[in-house]
């Protein structure tokens, strides 16, 4: 327990403290920030509203809604997105929020699986994440997650693709710099799923990973893959203390 805590703080000590780190939101133009802040103009709120309706809709052979098991999301889901990914006993591996929603669907609702980037799954994930708005990221302290975080860090620091760049080259060493018109953010996963103007729709964090990997002309991993879960665990511990802001808006 002590050792784990020491390792975790040790890992965090190498990066800036929460006060020094800047989210993608803080690096955006005032126009985009205003768009995100105003619930009427934030396009992600459409998905949140859809997710709220799905929360109460019975699904699958079990005929159960999320609310039948979890009650009101405002209480039961508060802060959940801020501590995911979490350990899943049955599969003996971590799951992220989209994975957990998928497992509730197949295990408890006895309903068919949804694709991770499908509209209903993004809607439910946006609705659940919204219940953590303003909550500081607090990574799950289960020690079984630590080796995964280490794997994620290694991935983040490994050069790849035809352009031979690591995530860290851009997001640690050149955050705030400009890649043509784009300001390079620090890559904090505070606002997912998020609405990207370039996508013209909502997308998950793993889709963003795929974009960056394709950008360096590397072969992306699959959404939901162990590699992306490991990256997500590492980025969440790197972002510990920063406040959740889903559904974020990004250029």
């Amino acid at each position, binding site marked *: 327990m002590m050792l784990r805590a020491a390792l975790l703080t040790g890992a965090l000590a190498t990066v800036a403290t929460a006060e020094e780190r800047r989210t993608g939101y803080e690096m955006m133009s005032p126009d985009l920030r205003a768009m995100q802040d105003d619930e009427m103009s934030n396009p992600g709120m459409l998905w949140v509203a859809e997710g709220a309706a799905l929360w109460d809709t019975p699904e699958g052979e079990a005929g159960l809604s999320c609310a039948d098991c979890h009650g009101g999301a405002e209480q039961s889901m508060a802060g959940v997105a801020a501590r995911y990914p979490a350990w899943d006993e049955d599969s003996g591996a971590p799951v992220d929020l989209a994975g957990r929603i998928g497992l509730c669907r197949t295990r408890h609702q006895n309903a068919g699986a949804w694709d991770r980037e499908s509209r209903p799954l993004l809607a439910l994930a946006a609705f659940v994440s919204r219940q953590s708005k303003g909550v500081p990221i607090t990574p799950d302290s289960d020690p079984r997650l630590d080796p995964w975080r280490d794997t994620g860090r290694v991935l983040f620091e*490994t*050069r*790849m*693709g*035809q*352009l*031979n*760049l690591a995530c860290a*080259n*851009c997001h640690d*060493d*050149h955050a705030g*710099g*400009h*890649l*043509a*018109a784009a300001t390079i953010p620090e890559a904090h996963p505070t606002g997912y799923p998020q609405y990207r103007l370039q996508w013209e729709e909502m997308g998950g964090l793993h889709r963003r990973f795929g974009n960056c*990997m*394709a950008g360096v*002309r*590397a*072969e*992306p991993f699959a959404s939901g893959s162990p590699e992306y879960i490991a990256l997500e665990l590492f980025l969440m511990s790197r972002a510990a203390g920063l406040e959740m802001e889903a559904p974020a808006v990004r250029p």
Partner: protein
Amino acid sequence: MGRALSCAAAIAIAGPLGAQGLPDPLTDVPGDPSRGHAIVLDQQKSLCVLCHAGPFAEVPFQGDLGPDLTGVGDRLSLPELRLRVVDSRSVNPDTIMPPFHSLDGLARVGARWQGTTILTAQEVEDVVAYLASLKGGSE
């Protein structure tokens, strides 16, 4: 393919020589600065302006991760320019500038890009000829 391999060998030799550069052209056809100009401005192909500013009035948003290329033809010789475009790791092992004509040590390259270098030998010669022509200030 064979060309890329022979080029990788050339870098292995150039490595210890460091900043001295690659004096021999990679092809028999002299580089064409106007083709090189077009390649440098092509954000999908060469990506140069993603990271570098320079005397490129056509490009509204120029990157700032690398040095401004204005006047680079005064600062660096042709062999030095060629070496940097072929593989900047020979000059700075930690560089973020992609290796434009080397397959050395690349990992997890996307299926679409496997076994190919970012620029062909002729494109490198064209780009280098263009860079060498960038003399003087930005007026």
